């Protein structure tokens, strides 16, 4: 597994596992994922703006900001008034027997959208995060014209309607990732 964007040493096992743990926490905590993605998409933003836009309680906002800072993926600019923050776009490359798998902030975005997109929430409840990652992969392939949504559902191993529903919902995630290319790198 290799690390990108945050470490200069390509064979840094500590860095690799640290990134894995960061990703695991983001993928398992939708509200944290939502905060991370919001900041990523808005470049440098005031903490108070984040609180208002995401409608988060004061304590929760600062708790999550603190968490991302501990993970070493958020920088706080205290010299600014009001204090602003920005985050690093992290990605993981996993070498698997089936080839290279790239895990990008787009998956974190998809996880965050459980909070406001019923179709994604239902899919994750039924199928889990790993399947959501696969669905995101196939959504890109459908968008690229490689295969139809029904064929993608077949490959995902889910009912056609379930597949079409989640792929339709993930089109927005993939669309955002394409628009924000510099921050949300695209998958294979």
């Amino acid at each position, binding site marked *: 597994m290799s690390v990108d964007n945050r470490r200069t040493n390509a064979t840094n096992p500590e860095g690799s596992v640290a990134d894995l743990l960061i990703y695991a926490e983001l993928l398992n905590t939708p509200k944290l994922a939502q905060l991370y993605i919001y900041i990523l998409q808005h470049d440098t933003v005031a903490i108070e703006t984040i609180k208002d836009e995401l409608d988060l309680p004061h304590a929760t906002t600062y708790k999550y900001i603190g968490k991302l800072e501990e993970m070493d993926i958020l920088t706080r600019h205290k010299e600014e008034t009001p204090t602003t923050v920005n985050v690093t776009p992290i990605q993981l490359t996993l070498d698997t027997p089936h080839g290279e798998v790239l895990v990008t902030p787009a998956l974190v975005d998809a996880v965050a959208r459980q909070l406001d997109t019923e179709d994604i929430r239902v899919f994750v409840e039924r199928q889990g995060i790993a399947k959501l990652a696969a669905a995101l992969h196939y959504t890109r392939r459908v968008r690229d014209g490689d295969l*139809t949504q029904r064929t993608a559902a077949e490959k995902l191993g889910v009912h056609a309607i379930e597949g079409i529903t989640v792929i339709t919902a993930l089109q927005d995630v993939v669309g955002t990732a394409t628009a924000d290319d510099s921050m949300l790198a695209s998958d294979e």
Partner: protein
Amino acid sequence: MVGMELPRDSIAVLDSSVLIAMGGPSTDKYQAFERVVMQRDVSVRIPTHVADELGESPKTYTYQRDRLRAAQDAGWLDQAPIDFSNPRVSEAIDRTRKRMLNLSVDDVTEDEIEKTDTVLTGVAYQYAIEQTSHVTVLVSDTIAEQAIDDVLCAMDVGNETAVIEGREFLEDLLDKDFEKRR
């Protein structure tokens, strides 16, 4: 695609992917679509095969089936049985399957081309040969769009039919609605 309209008094063959993209009856896209088909007297048809697939989906997706029912109850959508007794209809379906396989990438096998994707061509062909109305097929896959259009043209009903990307059509409808209200 911008400015694409459904002709008056025409038939629109809808895939479930477009119905799903619309959202429920309370959403802007659903209501905009309902408005335009009722204003322009467009008869919306969903192949029985496609409706059956919705009907057989996991219980969690009952809300998707409810959208279909809502449209049927509102009177602008009906199911369309496929006339397999017409060999040309079966031919349209077969040719679509082959064309979709051709257009898909190498790791897609023939048994992964779903029948439900291909029946849309058959239904569109059925209506087109009646020559009473224009037929628009609404899908939301580039492969489906290309394959269905290719086959309908090859079977000489290209003039009577059009195949459009349903999600773009819905976005376009919303933009037009927004423009009108400004």
